[in-house]
């Protein structure tokens, strides 16, 4: 198994099932049926629409800092669609919105989050999902503990933990992967190698030829997968989930993909991204690849995609309107939920703050 993954395997090309021309590798029977494929396609397409809208909202001063999924849709959707939201959990970094939505998080909450409303960080009642993690890699220990805790309580739930190539350099990533191995925690680690940590290219992030090589050092299987290939991501994650559910422990998947846009709304990648490289990578757009496959199978066409895009624009318009209708925040927003049993001193501070500035009425 992956414990046998070596520098040699890693040097080899990432595992690919859906070729750039949209054809499926010989003999591979995709686990996703037509309906599943279209569902995934819609999620990827919606993500693109949300990215575009959030960028323009930020430019208009209607939204805070936003990081788009742009280019990583297959890596996120391919992995998330291998989960059962009813029992499996997602522990995100901050660039995996489609996976969060599939778990049951709503677009309105997402917009509230990026608009700076605390409510946006509540994932929703009964939604198996942890909040966005801004402190890079800090979520990876959480994912391991969560998986351990689920198993401890007799659940067969699996945790899918996302983190970036940059986050992989943090001590937390190492401590968590090592603990997952020791405890055989049911976690699927999806390391999204999108080539960049803000302006830092992967070659300055590590000298390893593949992050999948890290797995052997933790006694777990590691697999290098083409992150722009929906089918390969879904297949690798499905196998990893099955293994975790069966009690055979964690897996590390390196999803090799590419950040097709700026790091976030305040970043200017022209300072550090080679234009030619960007063009070349844009040609490998995961949506284009999937679209070719769907076309070949007669599942969609230009007209259908245009209709879908229109439908998504309307959906996002409605969500934006609802999010922007969130009542303005009063001082209470600073104090609610800090403690279940607040110290007297904090209640006193709250009283002063509210007296000085009575909370607006909805």
């Amino acid at each position, binding site marked *: 198994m992956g414990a046998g993954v070596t520098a040699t395997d890693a040097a080899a090309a990432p595992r690919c099932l859906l070729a750039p021309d949209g054809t499926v590798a010989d003999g591979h029977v995709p686990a996703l049926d037509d309906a599943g494929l279209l569902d995934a396609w819609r999620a990827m397409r919606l993500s693109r629409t949300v990215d575009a809208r959030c960028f323009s909202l930020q430019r208009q001063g209607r939204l805070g800092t936003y990081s788009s999924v742009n280019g990583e849709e297959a890596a996120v959707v391919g992995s998330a669609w291998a989960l059962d939201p009813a029992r499996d959990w997602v522990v995100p970094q901050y660039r995996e919105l489609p996976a969060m939505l599939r778990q049951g998080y709503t677009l309105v909450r997402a917009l509230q989050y990026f608009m700076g409303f*605390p*409510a946006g*960080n*509540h*994932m929703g009642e009964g939604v198996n999902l*942890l*909040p966005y993690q801004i*402190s890079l890699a*800090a979520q*990876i*220990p*959480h*994912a*391991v*503990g*969560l*998986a*351990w*805790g*689920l198993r*401890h*309580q007799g659940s067969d739930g699996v945790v899918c933990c996302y983190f970036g190539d940059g986050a992989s350099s943090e*001590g*937390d990533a190492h*401590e*968590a992967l*090592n*603990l997952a191995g*020791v405890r055989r925690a049911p976690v699927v680690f999806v390391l999204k190698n999108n080539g960049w940590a803000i302006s830092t290219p992967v070659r300055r992030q590590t000298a390893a030829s593949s992050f999948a090589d890290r797995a052997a050092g933790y006694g777990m299987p590691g697999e290098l997968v083409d992150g722009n290939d929906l089918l390969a991501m879904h297949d690798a994650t499905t196998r990893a989930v099955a293994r975790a559910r069966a009690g055979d422990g964690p897996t590390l998947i390196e999803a090799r993909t590419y950040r097709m846009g700026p790091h976030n709304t305040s970043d200017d990648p022209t300072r550090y991204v080679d234009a030619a490289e960007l063009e070349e990578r844009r040609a490998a757009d995961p949506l284009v690849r999937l679209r070719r496959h769907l076309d070949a199978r007669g599942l969609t066409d230009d007209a259908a995609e245009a209709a879908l895009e229109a439908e998504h624009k309307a959906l996002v318009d409605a969500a934006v309107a609802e999010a922007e209708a969130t009542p303005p925040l009063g001082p209470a927003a600073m104090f*609610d*939920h*800090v*403690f*279940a*049993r607040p*110290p*007297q*001193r904090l209640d006193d501070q709250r009283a002063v703050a509210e007296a000085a500035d009575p909370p607006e009425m909805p």
Partner: protein
Amino acid sequence: MAVMTMVEAIRAGLGAALEGDERVLLLGQDIGVNGGVFRATEGLQERFGAERVVDMPLAEAVIVGSAVGLACSGLVPIPELQFLGFGSQAFHQIEGQVARMRFRSQGAYPMPMVLRAPFGGNVRTPELHSDAHEAKYVNAPGLKVVMPATAHDAKGMLTEAIRDPDPVLFCEPLRGYRLISDEVPEGDYTVPLGRARTVREGSDLVIVAYSAAVVVATRAAERAGEEGYSVGVLDLRSLVPLDVDALREAVAGCGRALVLHEAPLSAGFGAELVATIQEEAFWSLEAPVLRVTAYDAPYPPGGIEERYVPSVERVLAGVRTALEA
């Protein structure tokens, strides 16, 4: 009631918690087979098994960070930091994650965890084992900080902390593990967080202290008594919540105060105490509130530590200064 040492009282509290609530789970370095390097968890793995008293790899950030995940899954984790000084390795998980998860998730993910950590000097440990870092955690909103000074409070506040839905940093005085012993009820009881304890009344001055420093404060107060001064001692018991009323009343009663701790002076918790006292009892203060603390230097090697940790003599000298002011 049986007389117990502090470490016995803590062990009893942990055993009772494991017994009474199946959601409770202990994790840390050497806490299982070895029973903890100070024996605070001795015998617990035999009683409750290796799945509830869990030996962890040598990595503080993931001991704390995985406890965050365990709490998200519905359990009540009690991670142990082998020494508070090594909480620095997990500082980002404690101040950035444990303390904020409840607020971040708007109540969806409470953190009913108790982080146990021994600390404190004059036990000839190697470097970094004795550091008193409490102020750094008090300045990390979302966390409660408990520092008992007696075996009775140790068990009672530990039990309360475990039942408290908020995350608690529970600091245990290394020096007190065996030196401090007093009467501890056998059965279930709790000591509320945020209620200071009057160790002794005094009409001339009050010494405000917590954890092992309470022992030093009490000896100094007795010595001052022999010199004809009436000196009281207030044991804070917890820094968050802070018993502001008790502070106000204690100072109002005598007009003079001295605050004492093992941590360095600058930005130590003593500063917070002085600030709070002068905010709450300014008009009853007859002299500046004095601070007796460690110096603004790193905790030194064993050969000199007795001079670094505030001694009865230094406190006594402070008492004299405060009373002659």
